[in-house]
């Protein structure tokens, strides 16, 4: 167990990270991600408030839809990345990272105008279980009457899982199809155990409980950013290749001007994916070297269990941020060859 944003969380379960990772790609993995924070926003100007704080366009959401977005600073850098759920025109739920929940809460409440939306930090009230992988829909369907096939990607519905009121969201952080289920915190164990039963836990093709290490390798193969690694208050969304969640033409939001300016003049550095081409494993924080010059830094580096390669993401100067560019990684004093490649590294067959 490790401390993760104040939560005791397992790095891996007995099957081990590699098996957990592969099982999620081939069948299903179950993740207890109850550490994630939830902030409830209600009131007539809920959408207006959140839309001023985040980069994506909340006004485009319909009821029952979720959206990936970011809380931005005036410089266009990232306070946090999050999911915005729309229940109705006056009710949103923000799902934020565990380690940043308090910071986000302070940030959001400090920008609330008097008498506007009602905010509530409901993190402790919810558990969140993520069931991910090609078998996820079949497993979860055994525990609910809701027709899950009708829930489209990045949409959600409210219903019951094993008789427990829940939010069932077709979202995830693994690059697979799957669901994130939110329910009352004291029901976590019940739903967890029922999902393992329904998923035939114990068989070679059944669901496996997965720890933080597999969650990290799965999201890295899928090319997804992790707050504190690829994105933070020193990286802008454009540098992080998250221009697709910067809706510069929507109503004004914090950081819009900075992002518009950066878009016009171009970014000086950019986040890229790379594959190690020699023996060695790149790790977080190692330097990127080109022609004996230290030009960048690895944000996440790891073996990729499904791809059976050693991969990573790194910030490099824009002029070298192109596919095929040869780079080296300083692996504890040894320069190891690598090549910039397209991301996501892994994309599931649909």
């Amino acid at each position, binding site marked *: 167990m490790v401390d993760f944003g104040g939560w005791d969380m397992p*790095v891996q379960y007995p099957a*081990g990270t*590699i098996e957990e*990772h592969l099982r999620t790609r081939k069948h299903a993995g179950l993740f207890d991600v109850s550490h994630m924070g939830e902030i409830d926003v209600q009131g007539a100007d809920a959408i207006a408030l959140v839309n001023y704080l985040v980069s994506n366009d909340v006004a485009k959401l319909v009821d029952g839809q979720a959206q990936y977005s970011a809380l931005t600073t005036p410089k266009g850098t990232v306070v946090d990345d999050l999911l915005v759920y729309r229940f109705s025109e006056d009710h949103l739920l923000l799902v934020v990272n565990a380690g940043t929940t308090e910071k986000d809460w302070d940030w959001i409440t400090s920008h609330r105008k008097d008498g506007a939306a009602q905010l509530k930090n409901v993190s402790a009230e919810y558990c969140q279980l993520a069931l991910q992988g090609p078998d996820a829909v079949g497993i979860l369907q055994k525990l609910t009457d809701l027709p899950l096939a009708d829930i489209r990607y990045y949409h959600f519905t409210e219903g019951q899982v094993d008789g427990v009121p829940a939010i069932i969201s077709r979202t995830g952080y693994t690059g697979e199809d799957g669901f994130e289920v939110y329910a009352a915190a004291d029901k976590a164990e019940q739903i967890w155990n029922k999902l393992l039963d329904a998923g035939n836990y114990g068989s070679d093709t059944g669901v496996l409980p997965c720890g933080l290490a597999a969650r990290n390798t799965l999201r890295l193969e899928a090319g997804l950013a992790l707050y504190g690694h690829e994105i933070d208050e020193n990286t802008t969304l454009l540098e992080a290749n998250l221009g697709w969640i910067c809706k510069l033409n929507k109503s004004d939001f914090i950081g819009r001007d900075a992002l518009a300016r950066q878009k016009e003049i171009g970014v000086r550095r950019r986040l890229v994916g790379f594959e190690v081409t020699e023996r060695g494993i790149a790790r977080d924080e190692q330097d990127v070297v080109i022609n004996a010059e230290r030009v960048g830094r690895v944000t996440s580096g790891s*073996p990729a269990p499904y791809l059976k390669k050693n991969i990573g993401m790194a910030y490099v100067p824009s002029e070298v941020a192109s596919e095929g560019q040869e780079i080296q990684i300083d692996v*504890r004093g040894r320069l190891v060859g690598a090549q910039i490649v397209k991301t996501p590294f892994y994309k599931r067959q649909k």
Partner: protein
Amino acid sequence: MANIPDDLHYSKDHEWVRVDGNVAIVGITDYAQDSLGDVVYVELPKVGDDFAANESFGSVESVKAVSEVFSPVSGEVVGINETLADTPEKVNQDPYGEGWMIRVQMSNPGEVDSMLTAAEYEDFTKAEKE
């Protein structure tokens, strides 16, 4: 319960030594491989490299972490387990056999006497777990 063979010497860094004349065969213990998880990469020194006792001679990497490995004895590396380059999982599967790492020509064979016995190492790992 970790496997701790009686006929080996153990270090507090979780290496084992099997003495073969003046040569020490070095690997990591069952307890160590179990704590590390799936080993995906092993970096070993070259034959001919010299190490002092308790000096790092290489590293073992799991998916999540890098751990240095230390030579419990002083001397010259006279053999390395080259098969670990392609099959690092042998460290998990057979830590005291096919998962061995290096052979060291000991310059001071008396050093093994200050290592832990199997019983002492068992107590040590129990204390570390608590």
